[in-house]
């Protein structure tokens, strides 16, 4: 499933920086959306895939504050932090706050573009996993309570017989429910089922 095209969001209060970055990033064919402030960005952004290029020093909401705000909104956009010179404490804070990477200006254009590409692909992978997890969770939600109990038994490696004994049910009933839940979970094999169960319980 292909979603919308990944976009590079550039937030910088300096128009020269904003425009020049936009000009540079577009030169390799990536769509760029710019914002002059954190607030402006937050107003326009709606969970589009891509990455965020952010100057750490800005009037109003600073880059770090925006980062915190995004985390609070559970927006998982990879953030590339641009710093003027080695402001180590700021960098450390940014990285701890979940920034994808940082880059010091003046920078080499290739370095910047490489990191942007990496950030976008990381975002794509994260979105894929999140989508799958969502799908599995949706399927799991369709299971009846009994099917869910049987699934837990199967995933725990128990035989039908054992599950039947534990749940005080006929083995035939177990087999019936089992085939139903395999269908509902869209699992072709026991391996699939176990994977889904792991995905469903992973924190993401």
């Amino acid at each position: 499933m292909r979603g919308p095209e990944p976009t590079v969001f550039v937030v910088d209060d300096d128009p020269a920086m904003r425009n020049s970055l936009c000009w540079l990033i577009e030169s390799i064919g990536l769509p760029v959306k710019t914002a002059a402030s954190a607030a402006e960005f937050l107003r326009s952004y709606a969970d589009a895939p891509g990455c965020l290029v952010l100057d750490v020093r800005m009037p109003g909401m600073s880059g770090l504050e925006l980062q915190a705000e995004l985390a609070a909104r559970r927006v998982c956009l990879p953030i590339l932090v641009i710093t003027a010179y080695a402001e180590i404490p700021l960098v450390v804070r940014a990285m701890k706050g979940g920034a994808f990477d940082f880059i010091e200006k003046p920078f080499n254009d290739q370095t910047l573009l490489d990191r942007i590409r990496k950030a976008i692909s990381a975002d794509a992978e994260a979105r894929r996993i999140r989508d799958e997890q969502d799908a599995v969770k949706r399927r799991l939600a369709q299971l009846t309570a009994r099917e869910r109990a049987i699934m837990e038994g199967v995933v725990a490696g128990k035989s039908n017989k054992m599950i039947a004994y534990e749940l005080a049910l006929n083995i035939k009933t177990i087999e019936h429910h089992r085939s139903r839940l395999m269908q509902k979970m869209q699992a072709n094999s026991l391996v699939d089922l176990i994977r889904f169960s792991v995905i469903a319980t992973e924190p993401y």
Partner: protein
Amino acid sequence: MSARIRAIVRLFGMTPSHANALPEVVRRERSTEEVLHAIDEPFVGAFEHAPIGMALLAPDGRPLRVNRALCEMLGYSEAELVSGTVGGLTYPDEDAAGQARLRHLVNGEIGPYHIEKRYIARDGHVLWTLTSLSLLRDAAGAARYVIVHVQDISARKEMEKILHDREERLRVFLEQMPAVLWTTDVDLRFTSGRGRGLVELDLQPDQVVGTTVGEYLQTDDAGALPVVAHRAALRGESVSYETDVQGRAFQCHVGPFRDADGRIIGTIGLAINVTEQRQAEAARRESEARFANAFEHAPVGIAISDPDGHPLRVNRALCEMLGYSEEELRLKKAAELTHPDDRHLTTEPRRRLVAGEIARYHVEKRYLHRLGHAVWVSQNVSAVRDGSGRTLYLIAQTQDVTERRRMLEALQESEAKFRTLAETVGAAIFIFQGERLRYVNPAAEAITGQSRAALLEGGFWQIDPHFYPVADSPGIASATAARHLIRYEVRLRHRSGEFRWLDFTAGVTEFDGQPAVIGTAFDITQRKRDERALREQAHIIDQIHDAVIGTDLAGYITSWNRGAEHMFGYTVDEALGKHMWRLCREERRDILEREVMLPLRERGTHELEIELQRKSGEMFPAHLSMTLLTDDRGVPSRLIGYCVDITERNRVEEAMRQHQAQLAHVSRVSVMGQMAAGLAHELNQPLTAIVSYTRGCAHRIRSRSGRATKLREAMEEAAAQAERAADIIRSLRTMIGKGEPRRDWKDVNALVHQVLPFAEAETHLHGVAVRLELTPHLPRVQVDGIQIEQVILNLVRNAVDAMQETASERRTLIISTAKSAGDRVEVAVRDAGRGFPPEIASHIFEPFFTTKSNGLGMGLSISRSIIEAHGGNLWASANADGGTTFHFTLPAGEGKRDARP
């Protein structure tokens, strides 16, 4: 005759003459019988007047006639006796036998006979008689009369009885007593030999009878003493002699043996074995000799005096005691010798002793020595009395007790002292005996909180169960046995409940003549506390990292803590006794003695920084703080040195100073630094933008995707950003160059002087000497004084830094001022450092160039900027003898030397 012989004779109530009398009685009896025979014929006249009793009986025994003597004998009249009315005349037992015997006589069956028979007189007493009966016949031969002679023999009978008894006694005596009694005839031939003494001579009674004295003695010598004695006895003498027979001593008495008529018919002798007596005498003599010897040599003085007190005999000891000779003493009465004050002591006891009221008395008194001093004596006086109890003489035994007396006095004094001391002293004193306290002093009451009575009431260990010895109590017992002092520190619970520590010493003494233990106890509670505090302090001192050194006043080390061990490397054992200046360099010791000890004695404390030497020889800087300790009276007693190794402190201080210097340095360039930082940030933005625009263009051109208009716009944007950067730099330059610096007229020499205090911190730290070569009266310069001072300071710092590796004696920095060509004043700072290698020399004034690891490299650059801003020059030159000189010139104030602003 000896007393013993007399005694024997007295005992038996007889004499040899008594013995002689015996045959006489027998002779008289015989004559009486003859008289009776005579009566047969001339009968009648004689009958009546016969001196003995006579009776004429009919043959049937009927009395016909009795004479007067018989009547008197029996107490009856003739008529009474002849009438035959008197019955019971004959003793009852003999009557029948007498009648029978009379019939036999009458019948002619027996002849005349006499018997001893008893009659009973009228007054009832029994009468012994010798009665003779004979028969008178008529011519026809028929029995006509019986004539009876009655003779009273009661006296004889009594005598016989007495004799018999006495002979029996004599016999028993002779047989029992250790004596021999013998008799001889005139030929000195033994006629008898009796006595138990025979046994000792191996003789049977009368065995010697028949042998002569000479034969018995086996001697022919007529001169032998016994023979002579016996012969003398035959002449009527009584002789005593002593002789030894068969090893035994006999005392012999021989006298004449006479018959009843006094004729000597032999000898009679008595020998008594006196062997034991002789032995006893010998023993007595020996004893007497011994007594005399003992008397003379007795260690006590002995005087024998008459009842009046005149000495009869005195012994040597007494003479020596009183200093007189025996003769001198004998002339003095006891009273004269006695000390006048003591004479009364003996008057009454002596009187009573002499009077027999008492057996002896004892007195202790003083005699006067011949030399005048008193001699204390102890005297026992007893009396010797005769049989009637009369006092014969007095025996006084005298002992010199002066020494004892002196000791007693000393003892009493000592006792008094002890009491006084014990009652007033602060130490508690106990005397205990067995399990009980016998004495306690007031201090003991105070220490225990118990009353004296309570203490004496309870046993020693019952004072309080908590009063226990630290060591076990058998220790006391063994020490008591060994008689040495023992010492404990014990804890006692005072009655108030608090604990008191006592220093308790016990020793053996005597109390009331019995062994006892005396204990002395000091309250050392405070001392214990002090000790604990002291131990804690000592512990703390030991834990201190720094050296704490105690010395005596002369400086010899008396204490040495662990810190000192670590600091100096000497152990305690090595350090004690050493002089503390041994911790310094030898050449410094005298100086220290002056520089430290003198002020220390004056002020009590002294602090200094000093270089000290470790055991390894290594020198190190130290901060030494000396304190003079005084004792309780304020007299100096000890020194305490507190020594801190300041190697590290110095290092840190130096580091701090350097750091401060750096900070100062940084602060001086901080304006510049901030400017540079700001410049960097400002320039970053346009530069980044330029890069982005141009790279973006390049990408598009490469991919041929950019439209020309877009590319042109981007290029113009890039150019605009470049202009923006240029604007920033321009504005910066404007900012730096903006405004004239404040300028005042200054004397460069004054500026140099103002800089020096700041520079000194650094020069001092690095051991750099500063020399000023200032030219006086220089023209003033119009300058910003602070900026010029900073330049000078900067140059001084550089110079100091440059000399870090220079030998210390060459570390000299010279600041000079001079007038220079072209109305200029020149300031030069010259160092003795390494100088600059040529390749560096051309860079030293460039900004951010530095040879120092921690420098920013702005110093010379800024300095040059400042100097050039003042219209001067700053340059460096190499010295001929090494090192570098930095010069700067400043334009002088238009020749006006004294110009005022």
